[in-house]
């Protein structure tokens, strides 16, 4: 259980996140929506402490996350993997090394500086890539891949962390519709098959409605909506998005008729895509 207690973040005088109080039970897939600048990224980055809260508390299974330091903090980060809008992979390293970097927490100084990964880690990383249909590019330099492929590599890296929680900050905002669907399907499949808690910032309403068990709407740093997709009326949504409403409604990335896919389907789709491009 992830418990937010009046979590607040101020940048200089500006309140990016304002007294957010929430409970997220394990295994839930949560979508956070809101216009840009609403504080979604800041809220997410406070969970794995890429940003530190100004005040308030975040508890995970009773442990105070906001107070963690040093190795315990890194362990917590290792437990809640993150996927970014811009993938945040190391472009000049190959895909496999990027994925294996998800195991760095378990490494000492020496082995990580020398870049020594065990055969087990290599096999595990290949398995994770294979799960996302990306094993065939394992040795390619990462920045030669397309955005959709890089995001799947990033998810594979998150998987080898064996996290309890997966955070995704607008994971599909830089992707074309087909890749956006593949990536969202993968996140949902991981949520269902591995039982991970997934907290996902989404810009488009449709995607959130389609994939998430629960939607949280943010406005000016505050939570203004918290409920299921069915409970989110159009009027409410328009208010959350304000001037950006037209955009958020129109960018209907996913078609509901396609239905949800299992991760096996994701992998198959990817392989088909790969064959088509070869």
């Amino acid at each position, binding site marked *: 259980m992830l418990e937010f207690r009046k979590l607040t973040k101020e940048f200089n005088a500006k309140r990016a996140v304002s007294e957010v109080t929430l409970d997220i039970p394990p295994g839930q897939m949560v979508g956070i929506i809101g216009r840009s600048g609403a504080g979604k990224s800041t809220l997410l980055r406070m969970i794995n402490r890429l940003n530190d809260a100004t005040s308030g508390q975040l508890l995970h299974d009773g442990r105070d996350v906001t107070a963690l330091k040093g190795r315990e903090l890194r362990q917590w980060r290792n437990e809640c993997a993150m996927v970014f809008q811009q993938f945040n992979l190391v472009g000049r390293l190959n895909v496999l090394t990027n994925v294996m970097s998800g195991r760095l927490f378990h490494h000492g100084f020496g082995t990580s500086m020398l870049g020594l990964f065990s055969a087990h*880690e*290599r*096999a595990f990383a290949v*398995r994770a890539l294979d*799960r996302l249909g990306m094993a065939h590019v394992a040795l390619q330099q990462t920045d030669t891949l397309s955005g959709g492929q890089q995001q799947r590599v990033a998810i594979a890296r998150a*998987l080898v962390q*064996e996290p309890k929680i997966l955070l995704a900050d607008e994971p599909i905002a830089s992707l074309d519709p087909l890749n956006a669907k593949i990536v969202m399907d993968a996140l949902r499949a991981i949520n269902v098959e*591995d039982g991970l808690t997934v907290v996902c910032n989404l810009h488009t309403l449709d995607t959130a409605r389609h994939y998430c068990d629960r939607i949280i709407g943010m406005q000016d740093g505050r939570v203004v909506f918290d409920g299921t997709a069915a409970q989110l009326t159009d009027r409410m949504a328009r208010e959350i998005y304000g001037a950006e409403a037209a955009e958020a409604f129109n960018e209907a990335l996913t078609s509901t008729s396609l239905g949800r896919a299992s991760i096996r389907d994701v992998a198959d789709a990817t392989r088909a895509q790969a064959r088509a491009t070869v």
Partner: protein
Amino acid sequence: MTALSFADITDDDVRAVRQSHPQAFGDPVMRMVRIASWTIVIGYLLYSFHLFEFAKIFDSSERAWRLVSRIFYWQDMASWHYDQIYVGIAQTVAMAFLGTFLGTIFALGIGFLAAKNTMPFGVIRHAVRRLLDVFRGIDGVVWGLVFVRAVGLGPLAGVLAIWISDVGNLSKLYSEAIENIDRKQVEGVRATGADPARIIRYGYLPQIFPVFLSLSLYSFESSTRSATILGLVGAGGVGMIIIERFRAGMFDQVAFVVLNILIVIAVIDWGSGLIRKRFIGERGH
């Protein structure tokens, strides 16, 4: 293939993946190359530590301590002959300024002789370039000593040494700047029916001038640094004072002099930044 866990990866799994994705376990040739190159580097370092007797560092603690404590503990500051120090520093700056000025003037001519687009005769160009290699290949201190032998002790030798080093460096840089010139701008001026003088004035100069100025300003700063040590071989400037007082064990005074020089160089750096900004704008060199 659903959820995986690292703990569940067995040796059989590893074997299976090794079979399906052999390259994922590293190219053995590449690994050998990598190990070999690191071995060479580390082996070389160990060998050179031995060859150059790095162990001596640990025997030197007493002398090093004496030196360091004298550097930081300033004694008898009233008797430091500040007039000599500041005259020396002034002389160093003057040597650097004059040397850079003369070097710039010569390099203005020689730069055009060494650039491909302004010197069509390859023989001359190459001869000039080799001569410049000689000028640059010999360090300023060596030139200093050579000129001390030729014209005697004093700042004249220092100016000549800076001049010759700067001719070597600046000519090469100038010629590169000339070669990198944008032909289109020159063509544009020529298209207006301008005479050769105007082509140079409006086609070449506006492109070259900022780069040349910037290079010469940098050169002045770095020449001030080299002028500092020219005194070590008797070629004038504050270096003579440094070596004199160092030999006499007055390390505190040496530290004071060096500190002053660093400040002067910082001031020159700041001043040339202002000039650069005025004539070149923010884009710099």
